[in-house]
């Protein structure tokens, strides 16, 4: 197992280099840099500009700039943001917790509902419950999440039940600990609901079809023939086998924790990574955009890695092919 993880980590190296290089090229292609904007300002002297260019390393050739950035990026030192005048790592750290809080809440909501709903639908295929769940999933799969966010904002404004922006109330600092938790949950409810409904709709369909297939298999027939109680058949035999493909999806979920919510964040004014990235792109803040791309891509690779390891741990067939394969 250990060797397998090492092998996967080594495989990641060229990918990371490729990703960072591509994002670096993308940003270099962008017209003008932040320095150009400062040049327009007559109050800034030519010496200061030179100083700035030097301290950001902008006067060096492209490849050297890239390697400097890459070396630092490996230790999560992502350079300095031109427009916010603070290190990129610090900026991202400030925002990333809000984003993680939102996406983890919505992921728990989506998975927590999708699995029981999917099983329920699969147990009685073509019953009215199943048809209702399918209708639900088709409808909400097709509603764009930004549109759902607008609709929920409309409801929030009309009813006043939910706040319409931000992660905390203005008087958050004076609240008691329980008040603080309640306040955060109250603020996260609307965007988390929007995100959860979207992924729930897709997940339910998958859980349902995986369960139906699993329930028709020989091992379930055998478990039933053995006279096991139906509860054990469903949860211990059918569900366990049906959920294998979802480990891969879980990896995607981890990968999407940072970037998946971006558009909804922007619409509901959630102070997370989405807003930060949009600002960075609009202001041509080179290191900030690259930092965001880099962190997002790392999360994706790590997510896939975790999924592969879990899959190898759970599924003996995969373990045999992948893990024991390298030992020989």
């Amino acid at each position, binding site marked *: 197992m250990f060797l397998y993880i090492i092998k996967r980590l080594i495989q990641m190296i060229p990918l990371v280099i490729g990703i960072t290089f591509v994002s670096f090229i*993308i940003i270099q292609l962008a017209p003008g840099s932040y320095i150009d904007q400062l040049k327009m300002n007559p109050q800034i002297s030519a010496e200061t500009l030179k100083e700035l260019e030097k301290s950001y390393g902008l006067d060096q050739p492209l490849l050297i700039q890239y390697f400097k950035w890459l070396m630092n990026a490996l230790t999560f030192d992502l350079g300095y943001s031109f427009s916010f005048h603070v290190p990129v790592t610090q900026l991202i750290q400030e925002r990333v917790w809000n984003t993680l809080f939102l996406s983890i809440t919505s992921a728990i909501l989506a998975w927590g509902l999708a699995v029981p709903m999917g099983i329920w639908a699969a147990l009685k295929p073509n019953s009215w419950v199943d048809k209702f769940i399918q209708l639900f999933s*088709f409808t909400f799969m097709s509603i764009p999440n*930004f549109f759902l966010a607008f609709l929920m904002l409309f409801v929030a404004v009309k009813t006043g039940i939910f706040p319409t922006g931000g992660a905390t109330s203005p008087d958050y600092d004076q609240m008691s600990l329980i008040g603080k938790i309640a306040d955060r949950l109250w603020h996260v409810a609307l965007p988390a609901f929007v995100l959860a409904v979207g992924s729930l709709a897709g997940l339910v369909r998958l859980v349902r079809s995986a369960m139906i297939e699993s329930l028709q298999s020989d091992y379930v027939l055998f478990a039933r023939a053995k006279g096991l109680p139906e509860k054990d058949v469903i949860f211990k035999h059918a569900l366990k086998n049906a959920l294998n493909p979802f480990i891969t999806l879980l990896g995607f979920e981890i990968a999407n924790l940072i970037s998946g919510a971006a558009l909804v964040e922007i619409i509901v004014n959630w102070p997370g990574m989405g807003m930060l990235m949009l600002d960075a792109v609009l202001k041509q803040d080179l290191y900030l955009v690259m930092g965001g791309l880099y962190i997002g891509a790392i999360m994706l690779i790590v997510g896939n890695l975790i999924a592969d390891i879990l899959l190898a741990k759970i599924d003996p067939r995969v373990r045999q092919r992948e893990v024991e394969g390298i030992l020989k």
Partner: protein
Amino acid sequence: MKEIIKYIKKNKLAYMSLYILVILYFLAVFADFISPYPYDIQHRDTPYHPPTQIHFFDKEGNFHLRPFVYKYELIDPVFKVYKINEDKIYPVQFFTEGEKHYLFGVIPTNIHLFGVKGDGKIFLLGADHLGRDIFSRLLYGSRVSLSIGLVGVLLSFSLGSLIGGISGYFGGKIDNILMRLSEIVMSFPGFYLMLALRAIFPITLSSVQVYFLIVVILSFIGWAGLARVIRGMVLSIREQDFVIAAKSYGASSFRIITKHIIPNTFSYLLIAATLSIPGYILGESALSLLGLGIQEPYASWGNMLSAARSITAISSYPWILSPGVAIFITILAFNLLGDALRDALDPKLRKML
């Protein structure tokens, strides 16, 4: 092809979706004829005009065969409160004269499907902050939003299937390089990559340029996943007898890939294309929504929705959300159709899902 149509006809939902899509594309083609106003005509005296009600009975209860509308008078210019003036009726005229437009882009005419004469106005879905008719803009916007899906899929699928075909057919080093490349593209979070790629180009471009830019960006992101699937299919197809036969009579590699191998993946491509069109529509909407896509005064469903980013506007004038409903209907139709196609063409996939 006949079998597909037969199968879709059996599936009622898919058949309905096909009809809805045909109607939507029809509306898009004839947008300038069907819409009562051009997309950029502003009625500054009626900002946020609510949707006009169509009446058949006047206030005395008399029935009119020809539907008519009342005039809406702005009584509070700050909060945009309107009062309906029931003194005068404005009959809805069909095939009436209006602003000049070019049918199919060439035939000059000033006939519109319907309209109201005089100082009465007909805004079926209300008006936006500049008093532009949302219904008309929705129709004009559908040209962008509906075509971008087709053009985007065409481009990324040609790219993806060609790269996947080359990769699978030749194998070895080429395969290795191309697949690493696709892995890199797939490792980026899609939305961030879209924003970053958009940032390469100046924010202010002409709308035609932005349109093609969006297509290129979305295709650049989209080809990788497809190329990997096609590669997998090609790996098994290339061992089959007809490929070996083609090789033996001396067909070139390019010919074998494009004439013999890729056509064998068509049924998969058709399904995947139908199911990925929504992604392109959403991508365009998202960019335009953030002000990075199609620019005013041109209409697209995304940039019309950007008016809804102000919370006061959503709560007071909810009709500005109607482009969202249009996006929803379109995506639902494509999803239902794609699902039915998958069932029809690929019983194997059906089992898997």
